[in-house]
Structure formats: structure tokens, C-alpha cells
């Protein structure tokens, strides 16, 4: 009966990011936050495996105190308990730091057979935290997985690779990063949300970990990518269609 850790991240909703007019600067002043979309598949897979094999599933996240808002949402998606590793300095962490903090938290107090992460995060999408965490914990790892089966003391997984699929056997404990197509995350109902409010949340602070987590990368700048085009809108009637045919002719794709 596997003990599973599902990891999730509270990220900026990129739909709310604006470009400061007349500049190439991004404004994050009025952004909302949410659980990274890729991590919803991770939480769902933890819940699904528990339904299939029994055992227990917990959630783990690292973030600034404000990221606490993510926890009830995460708990409504399956985990029985959440671990929240937090410090005001945990903003803009790079993957190497996030993985090191998670490794320290897990080693200090969480027992596990399987750790699941999303394929990448919705904000940085560096796809590093999973494999870095596995390396720090010294456990086997499989990435870009779209099928997990547990047999005895092994996980049998299908990894998506460029030329097909690689089926791997990983002795547990192990870490797996999952692709969005591994499952369809359930939408939590009112009952799930109410139950989530009653589930335990364990806070782990930087003092508890008693370590420092330094970055390796320096961000020199962040600028907006410009891809705005001036859209000429046409209606769906015959006039619009005729205009569009003229556009296509001009573009040289109809001869």
C-alpha cells in the first residue's frame, strides 16, 4: 500500500499578466494565482492510485505565506493531509532551490514510497524540480509519464519519448513526473471542498529546516514577448468570406 506525496505549486495566472503600455515590461500588479495546471494532473494521479491500490496520499507545496490559499484547493482534489513549507523569502525560487527545500522537508519528516510531480510548472516550466528532487533524495526517477501501475515494490511506467514510448520499471521509493494526458482531473464538488477544510495542514518553516537555500542563477531581466497583431475582423457572411479570399490571394496561397 503505497504512501504517495503529490507536489503542487501556486503560480501566477498568466492570463492576468499585462504588458505596461509603450514598454516591454510585464506588469504583475493585478494578477491572480492558482494551482499550476500541470499539478492538477499530479494531484489527480495521486488520488487515482490511492483508489486503486489503497495506501495514503499527502500534498506538498513550497511558497510564501500567501501560497496558503492553494492548500484547501489542493486538499479538495485528493490528499488527506498537506505539508506547507513556507517562508517570506520563498518568492521567485528557481527550480534548484525549490527542489532543495522539498528534499529537506521530505527527509525531515515525510515517509513515502512514491513522489509525483507535474511535468513542469505553469509559470517557469523549467521541468527540473522532479528530477532534481529525485537526485537529492537518491531515488530512481521517470519523467514525462502517461501511465503508472504499481506491482509489488515497483512502479511500471510509460514515458513519452521523441520516438515513441519507453516502459520502465522503477523500484520504490521513486519519483515520477506526469504528463497532462495521464488523466482528467476531477472537478471538486461541494462535499470535497467542505471535507478539505477539515483536513490537517502541517506547516514547516525555514527555521525547522535549519538550512539555507541559495540560488545558482541570476535573472538579468524579464521582458514581454511581443506578438500583438492588428486583427482586421470580418463578419461571417458572404462579404466577409469574399474579403478573406482576397486576403488569401494577396498572401500568395491561392493561385
Amino acid at each position, binding site marked *: 500500500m503505497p504512501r504517495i506525496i503529490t507536489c503542487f505549486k501556486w503560480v501566477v495566472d498568466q492570463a492576468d*499578466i499585462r504588458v505596461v503600455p509603450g514598454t516591454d515590461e510585464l506588469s504583475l500588479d493585478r494578477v491572480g494565482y492558482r494551482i499550476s495546471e500541470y499539478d492538477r494532473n499530479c494531484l489527480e494521479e495521486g488520488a487515482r492510485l490511492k483508489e486503486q491500490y489503497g495506501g495514503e496520499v499527502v500534498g506538498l507545496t513550497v511558497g510564501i505565506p500567501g501560497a496558503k490559499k492553494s492548500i484547501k484547493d489542493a486538499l479538495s482534489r485528493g490528499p488527506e493531509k498537506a505539508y506547507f513549507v513556507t517562508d517570506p523569502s520563498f518568492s521567485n525560487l528557481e527550480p534548484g532551490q525549490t527542489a532543495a527545500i522539498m528534499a529537506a522537508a521530505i527527509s525531515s519528516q515525510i515517509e513515502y514510497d512514491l513522489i509525483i510531480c507535474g511535468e513542469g510548472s505553469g509559470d517557469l*516550466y*523549467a521541468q527540473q524540480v522532479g528530477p*532534481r528532487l529525485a537526485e537529492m533524495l537518491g531515488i530512481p526517477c521517470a519523467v514525462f509519464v502517461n501511465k503508472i501501475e504499481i506491482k509489488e515494490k515497483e512502479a511500471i511506467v510509460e514515458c513519452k519519448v521523441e520516438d515513441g514510448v519507453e516502459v520502465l520499471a522503477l523500484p520504490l521509493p521513486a519519483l515520477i513526473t506526469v504528463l497532462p494526458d495521464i488523466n482528467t482531473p476531477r472537478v471538486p464538488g461541494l462535499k470535497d471542498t467542505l471535507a478539505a477544510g477539515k483536513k490537517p495542514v502541517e506547516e514547516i518553516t525555514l527555521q525547522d529546516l535549519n538550512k539555507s537555500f541559495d540560488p545558482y542563477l541570476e535573472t*538579468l531581466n524579464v521582458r514581454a514577448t511581443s506578438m500583438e497583431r492588428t486583427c482586421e475582423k470580418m463578419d461571417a457572411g458572404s462579404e466577409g468570406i469574399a474579403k478573406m479570399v482576397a486576403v488569401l490571394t494577396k498572401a500568395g496561397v491561392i493561385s
Partner: protein
Amino acid sequence: MAGVWILADNHDQILELLAAGRSLADDIGMGLHLLLWDREEKSGEYFSYGADEIILLPALADGQPLSVYIPLIAEEAAREKPEVFLIGGSNRCKELAARIATRLETGLCSECTAFHFNQDLKRLEMERMIYGGVGVQTVASTSKPQMATIPPRTFSPGSPLEGREGKTREITGALETPVRVLEKKAKSKEQVNIREAKVVVCVGRGLENEEDLQLARELAEVLGGEVACTRPIAEELHWLPEETYIGLSGQVIKPHLYIGIGVSGQIQHTVGIRDAKTVIAINRDENAAIFEVADYGIIGDLYEVVPQLTRAIKEKVKS
């Protein structure tokens, strides 16, 4: 010995990294070293494309995954201290890169799309997309090696230089891992190549049924183009092969013309069409984000608009 190291798990990417690595090695004034395990490849070819040295790894035993090389490569890097280590952005190599960087206690710029060696500060300045493609972040590593993974086709392969030579050095060591490869399932090679297509008709979640792909196929046919899709159409619905989805984690295309039908225009998708010459969108939601990145748009039901447009193009071609 320092130098610029490169590693990739397929021939095309090795050539791309040799081209990018060669000019970087010249900028820094160091040698270019290629890590290789496949003995069937002609190493002479890689010397002609710019490698100064090939570091040959021991062959994999049956059932060993590529990740078995991680300790060996990390030990060699700790000993030789490369200045820069560029790794191909395939799924397997991305895992290798993150785990090697962890062992070497250094940073890693994932999915680096451009870099520049700053001669004054003697550092590599690397660009990558963040927030799903809304922003570009430039980073430098404060530790060495300065590492990056490079997505396929970011750089063009160079030209071979006849008679150029280099050295091969073999490294040895035990390859041990508890992970076993049970099976490799090759996927059937699809004939479509949306990266080369001049016209791409892309379908999104606005399409209600798999059979309705026919609408897109007919439109693509009259324009001599290919049909592509957004990620959920390939990965969740499996209506089209995975090589045909466009976006951040899929294909990045540069066609003359892109027509999005029923595509909402999430940034993760539209980063893949940034370099299209002309972008057309057909969507019934006039507030769909796709219109912000389109040159022309038709606001309407794709089930009415697309057949009409196909018919009108056919007539135009006939006349």
C-alpha cells in the same frame, strides 16, 4: 581543461549543438567536446562539424536507460570542469541535464532559445520563455559549468569542413542503476510534416467531433496545406498525432499562413505561431484571445464559415 561540452541523444541535435557550440567555443577561446555513446556514428563526421574532442562513454547494457550515465558524466565534469555544458532538449536529455546539474551543484537554464557570451563579464547570458510564453527571462549562472538545455531546431546545423580532425578519448566506469527498460515502443512515423508546410490549418477545442476534422482537411487541401492542432486535441482526445500539436511543448512553426479554426488562443499555443507570416482566426467568440495575435479574423460559427470559405477558395482557383 575547461571547454564547452555538448550532449544530445540524436544525430540531428548533435549537429545543431556542434554548430552553436563551435561558435561559442571560439568566442570563449576554448575547445569543443562532444559526449557520445553511440559507436555506430561516424566520429569523423562530428570532427568535420566542429568537435575538437569526442568523449566516448561506455556502451549501455541491454535494458539500461540513458539515465545510467548520470553519475559517470557528473564525475567527469567535476574533474574536467567545463565552462559551459549544453544539452539537447529531448525528454530523456532534459532529465539527464537536471540531475547532472544537481550533482554538480550548478544552475540550469531549461529550454534556452538564445544565448550570448558576454566578453566583459565572461559569462553566458541565456534566454528562455516564462509564464507560458508571455515573457522572456534572461539568466546567467553564478556557478559552473554554465548549463542549458536547448530545444530541437533552435540552431541550424553548420557545414562540414573537409579534413578537420580531432581526438577521441574513452572514459570507463561501472554503469549501474536500479531502473530497467522493459520495452521500447516505436511510434509509427507519420508522413505529415507541419514544420515544413507553407500553409497550416489548425484545429482547437471549438471542433465538436472527430469527424469534423474533415472540414479542416478540406480547407487545407484547397490551400495545399497540412492540418495541425492544439495540445488537447492530440493529447487528450487523440484525434491527431502528437507531432502535429503546436505550442510551447509541441511544434514551433513558421508558415506563410496559419488558419486557426475553433482555436481559443491560449498563450501556450500561440507562442508556436509567433513567426507565421499571416495569421487568420475563425472563432465564434469575438473575445477569443486568438484574435489578439491574428492579422485577420472571422467571427462566426466554424461549421458555417469553414465550408463556405473552402467553397469560395475552390471557385476562385477555378476561375
